[in-house]
């Protein structure tokens, strides 16, 4: 039963090539789900678009630049404020969003003048900001606007600004993954190497694929500071635009999210001979490995052990408390792609949980190679899953918790199954030692919440505990 066709997919049998159930003794040379290909018509995909991958995931995190969306205003709103990546400059990047606000007349006559006007107006309104990202959208790409030419013109006119253009119309590629790719390769081509950093340590790294979700970057930065390592740039958590221009001066690229940012690590290796070291920064045991490997690269093994000892002393007992209560709980991971392979063994080894189903929105086959190698026998692995498939999975297995985004999260809540926000977290950070405990705490709170037993009760029933808890008179309810 390696490749599986869900009953709900009988009319779209191509979906069978996207669903795999691992059996004993199998490896990825025998079966590997198709992925990063076009969604099959008839399957209601949960995927995002290329523009979303560029703006919401990577570019929008940068803390000191204007984020100009060249397109209708809705594209700006829909990627604003939906993901919590704070910054230490009062969350500038979360507070504002900018749009060229293209209308029908711009589609007919061209929107380049409108873009130029919007860019200059934005710089005027925020005179302290001198850096800008410009994103194309479906509309402005289709009408053939040349935003790069517009931006070069503005740079010449204003003199002290620097603008980066991402060509990421929503229709490009098959999912948000294409936007990750465009931003990575574009930044490498246009901006890396255009500025020199101040070097303060002989140990320098880039932390790639960490977006400071609820403070993840702060946690990693704390460990690295204690080890005496200078981070040239986090790509892109809590980072300044100009720090990212200096990435060529790092001695090592430490990669967490290889899906959204592996491209720039590969290019930095190819062009500047900077080695790429992939690590897991989620997971109590994984972060030990990550710090030890970074320490070994620089000959800072003792420093790494000091950090590990200090953090383990603080958090090991707390994690053990949650492990006692979470072991044996069945969990599904339905997120973007990489968190499947980052989390599956971490949840099993650190907390004794069982990951029974995993679904990826935009993972490539590389991600499925990783997750199938790490995942359990009997687990269901799904590419580009749809809602009907999720219902069928939940009918066939009893899951105690789903790690997923708010959209699917609301879906499973209606089935009275708790969910934890796997994209932007409930109460993070989730990275590092303290993050592993935070994640365990959120999962514990979700699974053991009394809300679930109350949610299943009908308030119109006289002996419903909902009313007795609220001190209501059941007879009143009966009359209603």
């Amino acid at each position, binding site marked *: 039963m390696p490749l599986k066709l869900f009953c709900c997919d009988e009319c779209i049998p191509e979906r069978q090539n996207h669903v795999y159930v691992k059996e004993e003794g199998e*490896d990825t040379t025998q079966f590997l789900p198709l992925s990063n290909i076009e969604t099959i018509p008839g399957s209601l995909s949960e995927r995002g678009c290329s523009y979303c991958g560029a703006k919401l995931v990577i570019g929008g995190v940068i803390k000191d630049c204007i984020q100009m969306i060249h397109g209708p205003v809705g594209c700006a709103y829909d990627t604003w404020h939906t993901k919590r990546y704070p910054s230490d400059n009062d969350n500038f990047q979360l507070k504002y969003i900018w749009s060229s606000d293209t209308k029908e007349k711009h589609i007919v006559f061209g929107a380049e003048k409108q873009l130029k006007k919007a860019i200059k107006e934005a710089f005027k309104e925020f005179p302290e900001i001198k850096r800008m990202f410009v994103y194309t959208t479906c509309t402005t790409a289709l009408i053939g606007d040349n935003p790069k030419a517009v931006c070069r013109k503005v740079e010449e006119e204003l003199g002290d600004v620097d603008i980066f253009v991402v060509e990421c119309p929503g229709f490009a590629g098959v999912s948000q993954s294409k936007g990750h790719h465009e931003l990575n390769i574009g930044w490498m081509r246009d901006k890396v190497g255009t500025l020199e950093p101040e070097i303060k340590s002989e140990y320098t790294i880039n932390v790639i694929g960490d977006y400071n979700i609820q403070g993840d970057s702060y946690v990693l930065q704390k460990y690295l500071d204690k080890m005496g390592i200078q981070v040239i740039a986090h790509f892109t958590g809590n980072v300044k635009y100009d720090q990212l221009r200096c990435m060529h001066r790092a001695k090592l690229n430490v990669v967490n999210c*290889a899906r959204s940012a592996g491209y720039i690590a*590969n290019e930095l290796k190819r062009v500047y*001979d900077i*080695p790429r070291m*992939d690590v897991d920064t989620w997971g109590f045991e994984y972060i030990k490995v990550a710090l030890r490997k970074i320490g*070994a690269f620089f000959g800072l093994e003792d420093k790494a052990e000091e950090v590990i000892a200090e953090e383990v002393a603080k958090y090991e007992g707390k994690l053990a408390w949650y492990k006692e209560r979470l072991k044996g709980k069945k969990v599904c991971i339905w997120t973007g792609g990489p968190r499947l392979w980052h989390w599956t063994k971490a949840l099993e080894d650190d907390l004794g949980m069982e990951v029974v189903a995993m679904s990826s929105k935009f993972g490539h*086959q590389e991600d499925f190679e990783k997750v199938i190698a*790490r995942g359990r026998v009997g687990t269901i692995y799904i590419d580009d899953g749809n809602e009907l498939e999720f219902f069928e999975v939940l009918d066939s297995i009893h899951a105690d918790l789903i790690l997923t985004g708010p959209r699917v999260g609301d879906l499973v809540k209606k089935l009275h199954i708790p969910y934890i926000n796997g994209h932007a977290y409930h109460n993070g950070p989730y990275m590092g030692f303290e993050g592993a405990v935070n994640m365990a705490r959120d999962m514990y709170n979700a699974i053991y919440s009394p809300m679930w037993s109350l949610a299943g009760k009908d308030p119109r029933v006289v002996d419903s505990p909902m009313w007795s808890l609220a001190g209501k008179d059941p007879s009143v309810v009966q009359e209603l």
Partner: protein
Amino acid sequence: MKEKIEEVTALIQEQCLWQFFSRSWDREENIEGIMTMTGKILNGDKINLVTPADKAFYSDAKFLAADIKKKMPWISELDKSGVLELIEGVKKRLLYITVKKSRNCELNLSNY
């Protein structure tokens, strides 16, 4: 030896991200570099780290060698040639799984 090769391969499959880099040439380079370095560490050979890549291979190899020693007590019973045979066998198995017979359609795309 065949069982030992499978045991180490299974450990690497489960633990190590370097075998799954984006392209076939990255995977080949990592498997050769890290496994060769792991053999040197297990055999107690002198290690000369010249290039940045050497240091990266060493970092991963050091962790892997420690994991093998911890989880596979039989490793201490192998002599130097036994370790080399093991390492070469694991290299072949990893290349088979992650490159030669990999079903990943992106492995040989010329650009990242």
